[in-house]
C-alpha cells in the first residue's frame, strides 16, 4: 500500500478544469517527482492533498485512510507537511522563531514546558540555514526561505513531505547539497513528493516521476524511462522530433551572466497528434 494515493481527482474552477482525473501515488522512503509545464495543475494537486482545496471529484488516501473530509491541521497531525510555491514564511518572525512556532504547534501542550532550543538549532543546521537564525523571515533570500519552510515541516517529523518547487532560488552548489538532504530524508523512511522545474535535480534524486499535463498524468515511471518517453517529449515539446530538442553545448554559452539552462520548461505549442496519445 502506498503512503499517498491520489485517486481520480478532478478540480474545476469555474469552467476551467485544473486537474482532470489525475491518479498517482507516492511511497514511503522514496522521492517522487511531479513535473509538468506551467499550469499543468501541480500546485492544485498539492492543495488537494494538503486539504486547502476541496476536489470536485476523486479521493486522496494517506497512510491507508481516505482523508477527503479531514481538515488541514489534522492531515498535518497524521504526518503530512508541505511547503509553498508562493512563500508562506512567517515574515514578521525571525527564522529561528519560525521553526520554534512549528515545533510548538507540533508538540501542543508539551511545547509549553520543553524549551527545545537545541532542536531548533539542529533543524536549522540540517537544512543549512543556521547562519540566518536571527534574521527576520521576510528579509532572507527566496531560496533560504524555501529551506526555512522545509525546516518548519521537519519540526513536525512528517511521514510525507510535499515540496513545491523547493530548489528555485538556490544556486548550483546549494541545489546539490539540497539533493543530498532529500536523499537523507527518504533514507529515514519519509516519503517525498516534489514539484520541481530543475530537471537535473529531478533526474538525479527522484526514484519515480509522474508527468502532469493539462491536469492529467500522462506518464509515470523511472527517470530514465520518463526521459525517453515520447509522450513526455510531446508534452514538453509539442512535437515528437526528439532531435530538435537535443542539447548543443555551444549554444548554452550564448546566454551570458545567468545560467538559465536547467530551469526552463520549454513547451512548444503542440499539434493534434498528442490528443490521440491519451
Amino acid at each position, binding site marked *: 500500500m502506498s503512503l499517498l494515493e491520489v485517486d481520480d481527482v478532478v478540480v474545476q474552477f469555474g469552467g476551467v478544469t485544473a486537474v482532470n482525473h489525475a491518479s498517482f501515488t507516492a511511497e514511503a522512503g522514496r522521492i517522487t517527482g511531479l513535473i509538468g509545464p506551467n499550469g499543468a495543475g501541480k500546485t492544485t494537486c498539492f492543495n488537494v492533498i494538503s486539504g486547502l482545496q476541496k476536489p470536485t471529484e476523486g479521493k486522496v488516501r494517506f497512510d491507508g485512510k481516505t482523508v477527503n473530509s479531514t481538515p488541514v491541521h489534522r492531515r498535518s497531525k497524521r504526518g503530512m507537511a508541505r511547503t509553498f510555491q508562493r512563500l508562506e514564511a512567517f515574515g514578521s518572525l525571525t527564522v529561528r522563531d519560525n521553526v520554534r512556532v512549528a515545533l510548538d504547534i507540533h508538540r501542543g501542550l508539551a511545547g509549553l514546558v520543553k524549551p527545545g532550543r537545541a532542536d531548533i538549532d539542529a533543524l536549522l543546521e540540517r537544512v543549512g540555514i543556521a547562519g540566518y537564525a536571527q534574521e527576520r523571515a521576510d528579509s532572507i533570500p527566496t531560496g533560504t526561505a524555501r529551506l526555512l519552510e522545509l525546516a518548519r515541516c521537519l519540526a513536525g517529523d512528517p511521514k510525507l513531505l510535499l515540496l513545491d518547487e523547493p530548489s528555485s532560488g538556490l544556486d548550483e552548489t546549494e541545489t546539490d547539497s539540497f539533493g543530498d538532504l532529500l536523499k537523507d530524508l527518504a533514507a529515514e523512511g519519509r516519503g517525498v513528493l516534489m514539484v520541481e522545474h530543475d530537471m537535473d535535480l529531478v533526474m538525479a534524486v527522484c526514484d519515480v516521476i509522474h508527468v502532469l499535463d493539462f491536469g492529467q498524468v500522462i506518464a509515470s515511471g523511472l527517470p530514465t524511462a520518463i526521459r525517453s518517453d515520447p509522450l513526455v517529449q510531446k508534452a*514538453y515539446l509539442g512535437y515528437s522530433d526528439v532531435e530538435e530538442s537535443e542539447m548543443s553545448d555551444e549554444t548554452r554559452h550564448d546566454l551570458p551572466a*545567468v545560467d538559465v*539552462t536547467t*530551469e526552463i*520548461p520549454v*513547451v*512548444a505549442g*503542440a499539434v493534434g497528434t498528442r490528443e490521440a496519445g491519451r
Partner: protein
Amino acid sequence: MSVPILEVVDLHAAYGRIEVLRGVDLAVPKGAVMALLGPNGAGKSTLVKVISGQKKATDGDIHLGGVNVRNAAPEELARIGLCTVPEGRSVFPNLTVQENLTLMSYAGVPAEAVLETAFTYFPRLLERRSQLAGTMSGGEQQMLAMSRALASDPALLLLDELSMGLAPLIVDELYDTVAQIASSGVSILCIEQFARTALRVSDYAAVMSGGRVVASGEPDEIMETMSDVILGGAA
C-alpha cells in the same frame, strides 16, 4: 529608425526587499511582434505588471510611443491604447459574454463595433453571448479575452502566458489570431512558455533570466539557444 512603440530602460522593481527586475532593457519596434521567453521566476510577469501600470517600478523608465509612462495608472494606459491580456483568466467570470464585450468599449471603441468584431472573428462567442463567461471552456474564455485585443485596435498588445492551461490545438488557434492581429499592424509583446509557438508568429525574441534580458535577436537564433534546455539536456 522610427521611435520604438515600447522602450524599457534599466527598469527595476521589487517585492518588499527582494528585487525582481534588475535593470531590464527592451525595445519593441513599431508594428513588430516580440516574444519574451524565460524560466519561472525570471521576472516576465512582473515586467508585464510594471509596463501595464499594475505595479510600481522602483527605478528606470518606460516609454510608450515615445512618451514616458512610468507609474501611470493602468486605466489611463488602457485608454491611451495599451491592451494588456494578463496571465490566467482575463475575463469577468460572473458577467455574460456580451457584458464582457461591452466593458471592452472603455478602451475607446463603441460597444457595437466591439461586438461586431468579436462575433465576426469568433462566431462561437455569438452563440454564447448571454452565457456567463466563467462557465465557458478555457479556450473560449481566451477567445473572449483576445476579442479585446482585436476590437480595440491597440497601439501595443501585451500578452502574458496566453497558453496557460489550454489544450495545444486551442493554443495554435489562438496564435493564429495573434498572427492575424499582427498582420493588421499592431505591435505585440508576447510572454510565453510555449517557445516554439510564440516564435512562429514573432519577428524578434528576447530571453529573460534573473530579472534581466540576457539574450535577444531573431527567432531562429533564440530558438537554437532555447532548445538545449529541455528535460535536463540528455534526452
